[in-house]
């Protein structure tokens, strides 16, 4: 497998080429393009564009539309992530023990990952739809109430993520070495204290990974809104991605592009912040 440097270099780039072509065309070029489109305004048919510069960025990013979308997205994230992680811990702790038939419960708890976002939306449509759904009084999950529709949308997110959070948290729990738990027991720790003082710190990296993943899912929420509410009622569930999706007409293209850049920045900032915040509280194994 030894060959000249030049041949190696050629082989290396040859192997990378297919992936690089896709990445360049559909990841990097479009990033540059949304930035560029954000600096321009289109006419009604999209045949002509006019340079408007950074003004469009300041206008859109400080505008009500973007703030709304960001706030609704944030609500979705704040509702789905903490509850999702908590539910994951609850399910995983309950199912992480030697009991007859535990495997069946583990399969049930994992099962929601078979449900795509669109399927999940249909599942909850069946439950929550005001006129033909199962629940005639959907409590706070009211798709018709602008103040409460977000709860219904978030509920679908929490339920759909259950399988994923359960699988990941259970794997985290099972990776905690038994001798550590036995040592805690010999130290006289009860089950609760063992969990708080030993297990939880040991699975913090797992929970960190999970919360970042769930946050990213939350920031990208779209399908359940498209199916369940269409952004309504009265725009109450128009997340950032929903707004981006609906601003592809030439006249709104500049605005949509700026919001795309905004989403990019928000995603990056959230990921960085979350890692930074949790880094110091993380207790890594070994």
């Amino acid at each position, binding site marked *: 497998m030894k060959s000249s440097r030049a041949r190696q270099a050629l082989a290396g780039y040859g192997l990378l080429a297919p992936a690089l072509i896709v990445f360049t065309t559909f990841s*990097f070029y479009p990033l540059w393009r*949304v930035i560029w489109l954000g600096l321009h305004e289109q006419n009604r048919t999209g045949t002509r564009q006019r340079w408007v510069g950074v003004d469009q960025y300041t206008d859109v990013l400080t505008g009500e539309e973007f703030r709304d979308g960001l706030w609704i997205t944030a609500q979705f994230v704040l509702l789905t992530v903490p509850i999702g992680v908590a539910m994951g811990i609850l399910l995983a702790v309950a199912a992480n023990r030697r009991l007859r038939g535990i495997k069946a419960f583990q399969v049930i708890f994992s099962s929601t990952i078979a449900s*795509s976002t*669109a399927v999940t939306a249909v599942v909850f449509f*069946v439950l929550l739809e005001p006129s033909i759904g199962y629940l005639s009084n959907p409590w706070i999950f009211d798709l018709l109430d602008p103040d409460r529709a977000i709860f219904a949308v978030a509920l679908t997110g929490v339920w759909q993520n259950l399988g994923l959070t359960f699988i990941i948290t259970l*794997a985290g729990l099972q990776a905690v070495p038994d001798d550590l738990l036995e040592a805690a027991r010999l130290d006289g720790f009860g089950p609760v204290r063992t969990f708080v003082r030993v297990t939880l710190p040991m699975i913090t990296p797992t929970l960190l990974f999970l919360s970042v993943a769930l946050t990213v899912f939350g920031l990208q929420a779209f399908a359940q809104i*498209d199916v369940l509410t269409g952004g309504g009622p009265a725009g109450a569930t128009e997340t950032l991605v929903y707004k981006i999706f609906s601003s592809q007409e030439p006249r709104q293209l500049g605005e949509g*592009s700026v919001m795309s850049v905004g989403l990019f920045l928000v995603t990056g900032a959230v990921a960085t912040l979350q890692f930074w915040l949790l880094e110091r509280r993380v207790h890594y194994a070994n």
Partner: protein
Amino acid sequence: MRTDSVPRWARNTGWYVLLTLLATVVLFPIWMTIVRALSNPITWSFDRGQPPYPVDIEWDVFSRAFDEASFGRQLALSGAVTVIIVVGQLVTSVLAAYAFAFVEFPFKRIMFAIAMATLMLPIEVTLVANSRTIRELGWTNSVEGLTVPFLATALGIFLVRQGFRGIHPDLRDAAALDGYGHLRFLWRVAIPVTRPVIAAFTVLSFLAAWNSYLWPRAITDDADWNTIQIGLRAVGNSTADQLNVGVAAALLAALPVLLVLIFFQRHIVRGLTAGAVKG
């Protein structure tokens, strides 16, 4: 040996109660979906007052999904798109991962960082520009439009490279002495040895491709080009008497994923937890 005051049978019963409760919470939405799909919609809602169990069961609702909701066409399209994306991602990921793991070339670290940077550029961010590109290429309502942007993924490159890096260096040296070139080493050693990782990635890739929603929604505007997931949108507009057909379609749409989940459970767990658990 424990001296707790609570006896073992009581503790176990307690856990079973909790587990059953949680299982009910998880399964109830699915159960009600099955109830709605199977029940005659009129009997269920008007005659029987929406009971939590199926009434006047109509098994032909699934075949009606094919006939009335063009589920068959959507299934074929989703299947084709998914197969193309999964195979494409496997090929590009394995090739790139091989280069990163086993070939020395200039700017390797930078190229790897560039590839990984695409994780920061999900389709949600690039949607506006990409759908324009697709329109300019004339790929609206086409298989190319649905697949080409997803033929490579940083996640696949990362996972497969991790797998390749796990191959003992002696194995590479042995292959070199055995007279294996790059191609033979890749095919006869690297891929077979990394099979678990590749399988895990394949499952993840399948899930993402099959469930994808935003992109096909953005670049198709013809109902003939609806994938299964997009087809489910119609449920939101259905009236009470035809809701069961759309709901049945949703159950059918989840079926392939459920089968994959059952048959490849090990790989799913490994794929999902890759990177999540320090091991």
